[in-house]
């Protein structure tokens, strides 16, 4: 009997060590989040019952687990940052956080995390935010399954959905982002992953990397953004199994690479973008098993780009496959499938018998005088392209795919 009692006591002792629960609701003992956060100690769980809580500037410096039941609403009333967290080992889940303040000097966010480690922000909904989740100088955090939405009419007063600054070992996965400036923005972030996100109808970019090395992004969809993804001044980025769709407009790209080194681009689909990939000053990049379908340009190369390899890609029905502005070429094209290829395969080994020249004379003309694009598909252009094909003068003579494939490879 005495032993049992001890066991029961032991059990309760264990429970209390695990953390108390503080319940917040309209008729509870604790009615505001601020109160609950003040009362809580490290390791406690705050359970928020359904209702509307009009609160902002909530500062959390303890390891708390905040859980919403039935999506309670936290309304910031357009004042300022709503949650600002500086703690290790915390979690925020199941909240609907709305109406973040806007400012042009300060970055107000629905959840601001700074100098924190090992945290999870998941299954929340954000609406009318300036910045959604802003993470600064943090490590090993996860941002998962959130839905961030805003209605940015003009970009002047719009912020980013998930913005990471000076972070490492982060995971951003399965979020939906729309109506923001950039869906996801990585600035000085390393060793991190972005996957399973759906970023659409954002004003600038679906995903944006700046000065961020050793990252990977995969299985994401970028649709109808100002431009799908922009990667700038970064090294060692892996990009695979993403979809870039319908990024249309004069300054629009599926993927923009600017000053990138040592990247892998594999198994992505670029469909109906003004420019599939715009490459500027990027070196040692491998493009493998990608599909470029019905883009204005599949790939445009400007500035100095060296030692890039394009192999086993499908180029399907693009208005122009490649535009290239320099005479020096150290980039290789091998074993790609080009729907424009009109060669033959007499020995039936699946590889065309004559090389394919992806750069057309017309793409040079368009490059220098963009207005000439209206001549595309005209008789005149067919004639100059044909004459260039017969006796090449302008295209670098080593810019060829010597072994073009006869059938598509990536389905």
């Amino acid at each position: 009997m005495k032993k049992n009692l001890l066991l029961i006591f032991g059990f309760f002792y264990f429970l209390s060590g695990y953390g108390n629960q503080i319940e917040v609701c309209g008729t509870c003992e604790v009615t505001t989040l601020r109160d609950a956060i003040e009362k809580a100690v490290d390791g406690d769980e705050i359970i928020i019952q359904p209702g509307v809580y009009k609160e902002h500037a909530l500062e959390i410096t303890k390891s708390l687990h905040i859980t919403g039941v039935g999506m309670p609403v936290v309304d910031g009333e357009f004042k300022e940052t709503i949650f600002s967290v500086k703690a290790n080992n915390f979690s925020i889940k199941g909240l609907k956080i709305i109406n973040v303040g806007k400012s042009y000097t300060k970055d107000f966010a629905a959840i601001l995390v700074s100098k924190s480690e090992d945290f999870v922000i998941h299954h929340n909904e954000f609406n009318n935010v300036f910045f959604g989740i802003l993470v600064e100088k943090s490590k090993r955090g996860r941002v998962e399954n959130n839905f961030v939405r805003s209605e940015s009419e003009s970009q002047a007063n719009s912020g980013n959905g998930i913005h990471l600054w000076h972070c490492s070992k982060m995971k951003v996965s399965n979020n939906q982002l729309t109506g923001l400036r950039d869906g996801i923005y990585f600035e000085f972030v390393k060793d991190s992953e972005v996957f399973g996100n759906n970023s659409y109808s954002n004003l600038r970019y679906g995903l944006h990397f700046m000065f961020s090395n050793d990252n990977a992004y995969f299985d994401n969809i970028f649709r109808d953004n100002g431009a799908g993804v922009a990667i700038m001044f970064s090294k060692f980025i892996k990009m695979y199994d993403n979809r870039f769709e319908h990024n249309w407009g004069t300054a629009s790209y599926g993927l923009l690479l600017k000053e990138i080194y040592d990247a892998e681009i594999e198994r992505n689909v670029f469909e109906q973008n003004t420019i599939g990939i715009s490459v500027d000053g990027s070196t040692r990049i491998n493009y493998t098993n990608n599909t470029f379908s019905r883009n204005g340009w599949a790939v445009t190369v400007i500035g100095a780009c060296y030692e890039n390899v394009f192999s086993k890609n499908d180029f399907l029905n693009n208005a122009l496959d490649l535009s290239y502005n320099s005479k020096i070429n150290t980039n290789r094209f091998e074993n790609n499938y080009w729907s424009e290829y009109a060669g033959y395969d007499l020995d039936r080994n699946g590889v065309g018998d004559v090389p394919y020249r992806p750069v057309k004379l017309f793409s040079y003309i368009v490059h220098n005088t963009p207005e000439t694009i209206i001549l595309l598909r005209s008789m005149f252009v067919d004639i100059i392209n044909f004459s260039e094909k017969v006796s090449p003068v302008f295209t670098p003579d080593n810019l060829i795919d010597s072994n073009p494939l006869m059938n598509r490879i990536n389905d």
Partner: protein
Amino acid sequence: MKKVFNTAFAGILFLFFSCDIAPEEINYGTDACSFCKMTIVDQKHAAQYVTIKGKQFKFDAIECMVNDIAENGSQKVGIWLVADFENPGNMVKADNAYYLISKSIKSPMGANLSGFASEETAVSTQMEYGGKLYNWEELLKKFDSGK
């Protein structure tokens, strides 16, 4: 007859004045930066110049314009403008403006550089956020030597 003459005269006048070099408005969200190709979205940090032949160059950040000038020289530039941090969307003459580089005010291309129309607001912003003030010449020099 007189009417025809007037119309023609007006037309000639229009042609005459339309040759004047003037900065075009920046379409935020659609125009791309001439230097870094990024879409211009930030009304507090945009910059632009027009060459003496009237060609337009637009930038998403003042550092992009300064880097462009460091690369291409400034001989052909007719007008240069930078956004006034205090009045987002307002463009002011670059050579009369004051500049603040402050870690707490981020600019699009990572230089943390903002422009101000008045010295007063530049100084008061510096008091609030810290950082260092520059005038146009000093700024050009700083970016040139950074190369």
